[in-house]
Every structure is written in C-alpha cells, then in structure tokens.
C-alpha cells in the first residue's frame, strides 16, 4: 500500500505545465456538447463497456496469487452468509431465544449472549452491517472522489488548484479523533457514521486519479485524439476512464476496509448505533460485560465477532494487495519486490 501511494505522488510534480498549453486544453462548452451528442447518437453503448469490464475481471482473476484467491473465496463466503442470513440461522438476531450466556451446544451453535440472543445469528446479520458500511462508503467516496479527481486532473486550471488544496487539507485532518467527536455529537445512526466516513475518505482516490489523469493527458495518443477533434467528455470516457477505473477499484477496496475498521472501532467505543447488531457492537457489549475475562463467556461471546472481523479484513487485504499488483505492474519491479 505504501508503494501505491508513493507511485501516485511521484507523478504529482508533473502538474506544472506551461500556461499556453493549459489554455489550449481548456474545455470548450460547445465542444463538450457536440461531443456528448456524438456519443449519444453513435452508441458506444454500456454493453461494450460491460463486456470489456467482464473480460478484464476474468482476466485479472486468472492473475491472482493463491492468497488473493483465498481472499476472494473468503469474501464470497461472508457475502453468502450475509445475503442468506435468514436461511443459515435458526433465530432472529435480536430475539431472546434461550437462557442467558448459554455455552455453544446443539440448540445454539455458538451459544447466547447475556440477553439470551443467539450469537451465530448475530454474526450472520452483523456481516450485513459490516459489508453494507464498507461497500456504501467505499463506493461513494471511491467513485465520487475519483470523478472529482478525474475532472480536475483533466480540466486543470483553478478548479484543479482548489481541489488540490482541499485534498491536502482533508488528508491533514486527524481522522480518528474527528470521527469520534462527530459521532458523539450526531445521533449514533449508521447513516451519520457513513456520511462522516465518506467525508474523511474521499481525498485519497481523488488524489490518485487526479495524478493519473494529469499524467495521461500528456500522452501522445490523447493529444492526437484531441487534435482530431475529440471533446473532453469523449476522451475521458473512451481513454482516461478505462485507465482510471482499476485505480478507483483498488481505492474502493482499501476504503471499504478502512470503513469497516472505523465502524467497528466506533462501535467498540460505544458510539455505534445501539439498535444495530454489528460485529463492533458485539465486541462492545462483550467487553463491557463486567469481569468477562474471569468467566468462560469470552470464549463464545467475544471470540466469534473478533475472528469474523479479522477474517473479513484479511480477505479484503489479500484481494487489495493482489489488485494493486495487477493494476500497477510498476510495483512489481520497484523496490525489488
């Protein structure tokens, strides 16, 4: 991960190109409109994009290392459990279905918590929460930040400068203390937590994609496409987007684990949504239980959410690392890795 960030920064210094050149690149509104009409009329349909995307996904799965494949299967397993939670559990997660703190047994596979709720059900339904938060936050800030970075990088000018400043400041903010204080003041709802996470995590993809767009627009084939009359929307969609999408995808993976960690950390501190049964909330309730470590309860109350979280994060990390390697072949040669 360290390398990827560095790789992005190194391109950054190329952004000081000369004024006349920039003027030549300033988008012309009419050109954008004509361009848009051209795309609308002549197809360039989403189906082609989809086919290309599917192909490249198929392609990249073939290039995954064993640990990456393990990560994918693990993630698929968790996704399966989350989607089919009602079918793989026997009780509602917040139904009192047994005695309090029953050890694992035939009635309750993983036992019950202090209120007599089934722990296996809580794990399965909790997977939904973690995946939802991870996915939603990562999609919004990955795609949103990526889009901002793309536009700013390609258009240049004042917008770009303003965006760069905003990115710098956002990245300087100490995220965890900020997260805690905002979560403490707002209602502890999942939506608020997600909004704050988006606010704190959009800057990285924006920066990575921006420098990619910046580097790309000086490539020969982009310049020649522009000289042949292609407008900015066409060039971005046709040439820059396909190159930037994998980068965005990598940031989506990274942000999703960041969001999952942040949500469970907040929940662990007692700032989670008290009505939700997330893995972080389970950790919170278990560790808040008086002298749990002097009882055997931690074995089936604290361990399952702990293992589940670590497993999910490791899966995401394995996939992310492989994706980074596949997306950026330079990483393989750099630093002798």
């Amino acid at each position: 991960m360290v390398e990827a960030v560095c790789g992005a920064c190194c391109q950054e210094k190329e952004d000081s190109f000369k004024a006349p050149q920039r003027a030549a690149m300033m988008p012309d509104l009419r050109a954008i409109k004509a361009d848009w009409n051209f795309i609308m009329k002549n197809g360039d349909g989403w189906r082609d994009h989809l086919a290309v995307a599917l192909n490249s996904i198929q392609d990249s799965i073939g290039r995954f290392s064993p640990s990456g494949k393990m990560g994918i299967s693990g993630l698929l397993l968790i996704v399966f459990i989350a989607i089919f939670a009602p079918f793989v559990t026997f009780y509602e997660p917040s139904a009192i279905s047994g005695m309090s703190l029953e050890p694992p047994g035939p009635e309750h596979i993983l036992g019950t918590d202090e209120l007599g709720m089934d722990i296996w059900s809580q794990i399965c339904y909790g997977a939904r929460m973690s995946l939802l938060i991870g996915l939603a936050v990562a999609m919004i800030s990955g795609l949103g930040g990526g889009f901002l970075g793309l536009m700013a990088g390609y258009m240049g000018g004042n917008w770009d400068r303003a965006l760069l400043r905003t990115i710098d400041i956002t990245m300087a903010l100490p995220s965890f203390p900020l997260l805690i204080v905002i979560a403490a003041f707002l209602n502890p709802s999942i939506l608020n937590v997600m909004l704050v996470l988006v606010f704190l995590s959009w800057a990285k993809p924006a920066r990575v994609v921006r420098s990619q767009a910046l580097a790309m627009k000086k490539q020969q084939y982009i310049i020649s496409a522009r000289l042949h009359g292609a407008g900015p929307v066409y060039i971005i969609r046709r040439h820059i987007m396909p190159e930037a999408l994998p980068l965005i995808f990598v940031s989506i993976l990274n942000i999703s684990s960041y969001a999952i960690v942040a949500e469970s950390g907040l929940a662990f501190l007692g700032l989670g949504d008290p009505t939700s049964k997330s893995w972080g909330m389970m950790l919170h309730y278990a560790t808040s239980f008086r002298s749990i470590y002097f009882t055997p309860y931690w074995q089936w109350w604290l361990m399952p959410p702990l293992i589940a979280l670590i497993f999910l994060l490791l899966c995401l990390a394995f996939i992310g690392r492989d994706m980074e390697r596949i997306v950026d072949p330079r990483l393989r040669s750099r630093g002798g890795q």
Partner: protein
Amino acid sequence: MKGRGTKGVAFQYATALFLILVLNFFLPRMMPGDPFLILSADSENEVISVLTEEQRQYFISYYGLDRPIYEQFAGYIFSVARGDLGESIYYKVPVWEAIWTRLPWTALIVLGATLMSTVAGVLLGLYSARHRDGPADKILMAGLISFAEIPSFLLGLVILLAFSVKLKAFPLAGAITPFAHYSHPLDAIWDIGYHASLPMITLSLTQLTGIFLLTRNTLVTVMTRDYIRTARAKGIGERLVWNRHALRNALLPVVTRVGFMIGMLMGGAVLVENVFSYPGVGSLLRSSVIARDYPLIQGIMLVMAFSILTANYLVEIVYERLDPRTSSGEAA
C-alpha cells in the same frame, strides 16, 4: 512527498486546525434542544424550576449566547488559545486538568511503541535485505504484511486473550498494581513497564510492518548505487558496507515515517487503551463518551488533533531540512 514550500505546508496545517476548531464550535450548537428549556422532571415529585422570561434572558446573556455568532466564535478561539477548554460535567474539574492527569500514560505507551517498532523494524528490515529472497526474508515479508492488516484494537484483543486471559502471564488491566508498596524505585519502574508492555507491543506491531518494508525496500534500492560499489571495491568488508554506507542512507525515509507514525499511534492508542483498560487519554475518552461529557470529549479531541497536526507539521519541516531534494521538487 513533493515540494510545496514551507509556506504551503504551514497553510495546509493551519487550515486543518482552523477547520477542527470550527467543527468543535459548531457541533454543540447544531444539536437540537435548548439548555434553558426544561420539559420534564426525572422523578415524579421533583420540583421543576421553570425559568421566567427574565431569568432566561439573564442566563442567555450571562453565557454570551445573545452576542453575534462571530463574536462567540472569537471568544471561543481566545479561550482555547489561553488553554481554557471548559469544565468537565462528569468529573467536575477543568477539562485540561482531567486530560493532563491521564496524558503521561498515553505518552508512555505511544513513545514506547514508537521506539520499539522503529528499532525492531529497522533491524528486521536490515536482516531481511541482507538475506533477500531467502526463506527468512520471505517468511518475514508474508507474516508482517498480514499483521499490518489487522487493526490495533482487534490485535490487542487477541493478544489480551492469549497472554493475559489464557496464559495469565500479563496483567488484565491498569497501569500499576493497585495498593502496591514499592520498596525500591526500580520495583515501581518494573511494575509500570510490566503493565505497559502489552499495550506497547500491540501498538508497535501495527506500525512495525511499515518501518520494516520501508527499511528493506530502501536498502535494496540503495544497494544498487555506485557508492556502494565503491565502498565494496575499497574492500572495507560487508558489515561496514551495510551498516555505514547503506543503512545511513536508508534511514532518511524512516525518519519521516516515524514522525507520521506518532500521529497514527495516537489514534490507535484510544482504542488499544480501552482493550487493556489502560488509564490513558483513550480510556478517559471512552468514559466521557459513555457519560456524554461533551466538553471533555471536545477537549480530548482538540488536544489529540493538535498534537497529531503538530507532529506531522514538524516532520514535514524537518524532512525538507534533511533532504534538500524535496524542496526543489525532485523525486525523493
């Protein structure tokens, strides 16, 4: 790292600090409700003292809530600058005092973890680079990279369960043995170190991988340089080549990394302290969250944010001094 000039960096951090102050000022004001409006009593026969309109006005002007918002904000900034962070509702002491009594414990584990992970990371990185692509290198790489993906508080829980609960080799909670009488100052130091070791190890494990990879990869790059070949050609011996010529040049990026690490460790410490019930600022934060002690939450946030921003700012300044290449915009 890119060359933006010292002024740009200062501007960036000053704006970030200002944003945090703005947030701290406006968050409580955005909450619903009115502190002077009492709608219900806690118990049935509690006497509710309903404020008359006059009293209400008096209180509002007493707390300065009738002044324009920018004046209130300026007042807030001035009181923060004077170190006045308000009064803790729960502990009934000034916020600054509550934080100050806990701060040494957090500083102890954060600085201890910084030292531990730096030393261990550099040594392991050196070892790994010297035995590059050997079995030890591969095992270290794979193992440490997986470690890095586990966030500190989950790792802390695993370590706590393994070493304190299962093996009973370390204490479960606290920073000193309660009611202990030390016959010798060394006993006290031993006791404190004994209690601090697990939180410190947890925190340093999360940062170890970064230092390790950085040292290893920089060393691998440095070893291809001409001056290394020259040193070897002089025949000074492998050990001197590595320790004097290679390692010294590889340490520059490590210095920066260590600075940024302190910021990340501060964030991690909040959670890790709660795992080990360690009486630092982090566990103070949790109890203030549970008690909804808003001034204290804000104060802790401000102190943490300020120290993180200062640490990162100093790193950027020091780094530009150490490596003149960064200010001219050349690749680091």
